[in-house]
C-alpha cells in the first residue's frame, strides 16, 4: 500500500498567528487507501494544519501538493472542489437550516437551476441510514443534540466524491455505538481508495482504525510511524515529549470506594424534577463529597438534567432543595448562590466569551457572583488566572490573550478553571474531557477525585463509560429522557451492565428498578 505515491503531501509548513508560531516546518503525507491518525496534545497544531490544508488560513511557508500538483487553496470551497472533504473540529454547520439541507448545501441536486428539495430529503435519509441515524431530516439542525450534529457533519463529508477525507475530532461527542458505525464506514471508504486524515484524543480509537500516525508537538513534527510499530506508551511519550507512566496510573484508578464518600450529608435533593418535552420527572440526591455519574446515550437527556439542576432551564415539575431548604431555581444565579457550578458541554455557544481574555473568562463567574460593584482587584485576578493556567497547563500560558485564540482543548480548561475558582459545593461537569488530550484528561480526572475527597460534590457527565465508572460513587442511567435507574458503583457494576440498562434491550425488571430507586 505504501509503495504507491502519496495523494497529498505537505512539506515544510509554517504558520504563525499574532504571538504564536502554530506550525513550524511540518510535513505530512497521505496515501490513498489509508487511515492516517494525526496526534498531538491540545494546541499542538492539528486543527491549524488542517485549516492550512483546506485554505481557511493562508500559509507563511511550505508547499502542498495534491496528486502530484502543487496547490494553494484560497478557501474550503476550492479544497472541496479539488476533492478534499473536511469535518472541522467543533461542529461547523448552520443551525438554522434543516438537517437535510446541511448535508447538501453547496451541492444541491438541481434541475434547470432549481433546487430539488425532494431529492435532497430522500438522499439525506439514505445517507443518515448508512450511519444508522433515524431522525427527521426536515428538523432544523439546531434542535438536534451536538452528537447528532456531529453525525450530520460526517454524513455531509462522506457523501462527497473525495480523494482525501479529513476528520478533526469527529468522535469527541459520539458514543461507542456511533463510533463503531463511523469506523465501519471509514474502513469502507479506505478500502475504496480514499485517504483519510483522522484526529482524535482517544488512543484506542487510533489503534482500532488507523494505519499510520503522524505526531505533532508544539507546532513541530515529531515523526511519522506505522501504527503497528508504535506502542501506545511510546505514542503518548512522543506526544507529550517526556516519559510518563500515565497509562499505568490510569488503570489503577478503576472504581471508587462508595463507602468512602461522606454519604451522611445530603447536599442537593431533586424531587420529581422534570420539564415537559425535555426530561421526565426524576428524583436525585447528591451528597457532599460524592461523585454522581450520568450515563446514557446521546440525546438521552443528561444535559437536560444538568441544566435543570443549575436553573439554566426552568423545571415545570418538582422541587429542588439545597441543604434541606427548598430553593426556587429560576436563574443560574440562584444555583450559583447556593454553591452550584456548571461547566457546559457546548463551550463555544454557552461557555466562553471569545473576545475577553483568558483571565477575564476565568474570573467571570466569580465576579458575577460578587456583583459588579465589588470588582475583584486586578492583582488578585492575575494571581488566580496564573495559578490555574499553571495548574491546568493552559497554553499559551499568557492569561492576557483573547480566549478565542486558544485551541479547543485549552478553551475547555479555561472553562473548567472558571468554575474551580468559585469553589462550588456541587460542580456539574458536562463532558469536561471532550476534546482534551490524554495528559490533560488524566489531570482532570485526578482533579475530580481530589475535589470530591475535599468534600465537593460532582455531577459528572461523560460519553466515555470508562471514565464515568472510574470516577463515580454512584451512576444514574438515562434513557429516552428518563432517569431509568441509579446504581451504586460497587463491584457488581461494570460497563456491560450499564450498557444493557442504557440499551434498554434488557430492561431491568420492575422489582429491581424500584429497589434501586428505594435505595437512593
Amino acid at each position, binding site marked *: 500500500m505504501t509503495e504507491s505515491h502519496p495523494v497529498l503531501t505537505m512539506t515544510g509548513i509554517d504558520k504563525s498567528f499574532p*504571538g*504564536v508560531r502554530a506550525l513550524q516546518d511540518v510535513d505530512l503525507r497521505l496515501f490513498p487507501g489509508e487511515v492516517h491518525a494525526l496526534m498531538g496534545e491540545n494546541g499542538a497544531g492539528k486543527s491549524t494544519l488542517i485549516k492550512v490544508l483546506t485554505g481557511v488560513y493562508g500559509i507563511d511557508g511550505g508547499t502542498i501538493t495534491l496528486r502530484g500538483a502543487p496547490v494553494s487553496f484560497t*478557501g474550503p470551497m476550492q479544497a472541496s472542489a479539488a476533492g478534499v472533504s473536511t469535518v472541522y473540529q467543533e461542529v461547523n454547520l448552520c443551525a438554522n437550516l434543516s438537517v437535510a439541507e446541511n448535508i447538501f448545501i453547496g451541492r444541491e441536486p438541481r434541475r434547470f437551476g432549481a433546487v430539488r428539495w425532494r431529492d435532497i430529503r430522500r438522499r439525506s435519509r439514505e445517507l443518515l441510514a448508512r450511519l444508522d441515524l433515524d431522525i427527521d431530516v426536515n428538523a432544523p439542525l439546531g434542535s438536534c443534540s451536538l452528537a447528532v450534529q456531529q453525525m450530520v457533519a460526517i454524513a455531509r463529508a462522506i457523501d462527497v466524491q473525495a480523494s482525501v477525507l479529513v476528520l478533526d475530532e469527529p468522535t469527541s461527542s459520539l458514543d461507542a455505538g456511533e463510533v463503531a458505525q463511523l469506523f465501519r464506514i471509514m474502513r469502507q471508504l479506505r478500502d475504496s481508495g480514499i485517504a483519510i486524515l483522522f484526529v482524535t484524543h482517544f488512543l484506542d480509537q487510533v489503534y482500532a482504525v488507523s494505519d499510520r500516525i503522524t505526531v505533532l508537538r508544539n507546532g513541530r513534527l515529531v515523526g511519522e510511524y506505522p501504527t503497528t510499530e508504535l506502542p501506545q506508551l511510546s505514542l503518548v511519550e512522543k506526544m507529550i515529549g517526556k516519559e510518563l507512566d500515565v497509562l499505568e496510573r490510569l488503570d489503577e484508578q478503576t472504581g471508587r470506594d462508595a463507602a468512602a464518600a461522606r454519604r451522611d450529608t445530603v447536599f442537593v435533593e431533586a424531587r420529581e424534577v422534570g420539564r415537559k418535552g425535555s426530561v421526565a420527572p426524576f428524583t436525585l440526591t447528591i451528597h457532599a463529597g460524592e461523585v454522581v455519574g450520568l450515563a446514557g446515550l446521546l440525546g438521552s437527556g443528561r444535559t437536560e438534567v444538568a441544566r435543570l439542576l443549575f436553573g439554566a432551564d426552568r423545571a415545570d415539575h418538582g422541587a429542588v432543595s439545597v441543604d434541606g431548604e427548598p430553593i426556587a431555581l429560576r436563574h*443560574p*444565579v440562584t444555583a450559583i448562590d447556593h454553591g452550584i457550578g*456548571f461547566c457546559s458541554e457546548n463551550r463555544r*455557544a454557552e*461557555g466562553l466569551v471569545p*473576545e475577553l481574555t483568558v483571565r*477575564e473568562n476565568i474570573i467571570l463567574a466569580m465576579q458575577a457572583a460578587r456583583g459588579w460593584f465589588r470588582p475583584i482587584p486586578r492583582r488578585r485576578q492575575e494571581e488566580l488566572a496564573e495559578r490555574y493556567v499553571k495548574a491546568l497547563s493552559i497554553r499559551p500560558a499568557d492569561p492576557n490573550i483573547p480566549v478565542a485564540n486558544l485551541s479547543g482543548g485549552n478553551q475547555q480548561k479555561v472553562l473548567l478553571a472558571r468554575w474551580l475558582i468559585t469553589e462550588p459545593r456541587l460542580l456539574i461537569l458536562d463532558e469536561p474531557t471532550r476534546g482534551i488530550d490524554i495528559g490533560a484528561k488524566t489531570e482532570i480526572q485526578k482533579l475530580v477525585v481530589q475535589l470530591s475527597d475535599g468534600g465537593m460534590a460532582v455531577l459528572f457527565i461523560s460519553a466515555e463509560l470508562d471514565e464515568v465508572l472510574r470516577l463515580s460513587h454512584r451512576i444514574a442511567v438515562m434513557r429516552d429522557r428518563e432517569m431509568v435507574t441509579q446504581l451504586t458503583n460497587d463491584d457488581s457494576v461494570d460497563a456491560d451492565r450499564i450498557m444493557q440498562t442504557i440499551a434498554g434491550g434488557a430492561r431491568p425488571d420492575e422489582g429491581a428498578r424500584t429497589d434501586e430507586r428505594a435505595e437512593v
Partner: protein
Amino acid sequence: MSERTSSETATVDPRAGGLGRFQAVTAHRLFWPVVVLVALVVANTIYRPGFLSIQVRQGHLYGSLIDIIRLSAPLILVALGMTLVISTGGIDLSVGSVCAISGAIACLYISKQPDQNGMAGVLTALALAFGASLVLGAWNGVLVAVIGIQPIIATLILMVAGRGVAQLITEGQIITINSGPYKAIGVGHLLTLPLAIFIALAGVLLVAAVTRRTALGMIIEAVGGNARASRLAGIRSARVTLLVYVISAACAAIAGFMMTANVSSADGNSAGLWVELDAILAVVIGGTSLVGGRFSLGGTILGALLIQTLTTTVYAMNIAPQTALLFKAIVVIIVCLIQAPAFRARLRRRRRRPGTPPAAVVADAPKEQVPA
C-alpha cells in the same frame, strides 16, 4: 511543556528594527482617527488661517476650537451611552427623541415658572426631565431585555413615538425660555471655558468610573460577547441590558439639556434630530464593534470630536449641508477603512510582497475568529 515559541515572535517584523516603536504607534487602534482629525484641523487652518486662534472675549476663551469642543459636548454624552448599549450588542435609535423630550420637559417647566431665573425652579425642571428620561430608558430596556424585542426595532418605537411625545409636550410650538441658570448649561462658562465641556467631562469620568472602576465594564462586554455564556456564568444579563439603556437615556437627557440651553428654546421637532446616527458613527470610529463586546470610551470621545469637527468644517467652508453628506461619507469610509485590520493586512502584504494575488490574503485575515 514550557518551552514554547510564543509571544517573543510578536507581530512586529524583526526586520523593522528601530522602526518598531513607530509601527507600534501606527498600529494603535486610534492612530488613524487622530490623523484624520488633525488633517481636518490643518485643512481648516489652510482655508482660514484664523481657525486656530483663540482670543479672550468678555473674559471667556473664544475661537473655533473652543466652539468645536463645546458643540461636541452633547454628542460626546449621547455617544457615551451609545457605546455601552452597542457593546452589549444592542443599539439605541431613540436617543434623539429622548434629547427632544428631556429638553421639552425642562423648558416647559421653566417657562411656567414666575421667575425663570430661580435656581429651585431650574433644578426641579432638570430633575423632572431627567426622571422622565430614566423612565424612557427603562422602557427601552424592558422591551429589549425582558420582552426580547430586537434592539433596533424596540428603540425604533420610541424614536418614532418619542418625537410625537416631545411635540405633544411643546404642543408643536418652540418654547422659548429666558432663564439664566438653564442657559448656562449650554453657553455658560467656568474658568474661561464653556461649562458644557465640564459637564461632558464629568459625564465621561462618571461613566468611565462606573464601568472601569467596577466590574460593570467587563460584565457588559461579556454580555455583548456571548449572552448565553454570560447567563450561565451567573450574570443577570437582563439587568445589565436594562441598565445600559437607562444610562444611554440619562446621557441623552443631559445632552438634550445642552442642546436646548444652547438656543434657549425647546423644539420638539428638531432637537437632537439624527443625533443617533452621529453617535453610532462616533462609537464605531472609536473602535467599538457594532456586534458587541469590547468597548472603548476614549475612542468614542475621539469619534465624537472628529464628527463635530467635520460638521464645523462644512459650515466653515460654506458647503451646502446636504452636499456635505458626501464629504461625511468619504471621511467616514476613509477612517473605517484605514482602521480595518483586513485593509491594513492587505496593504502590508502589498508592500512586502508585491505581486501576490490578493485572493490568498483574504483567507489569512482574522475572520470572525475561529475558535479551536
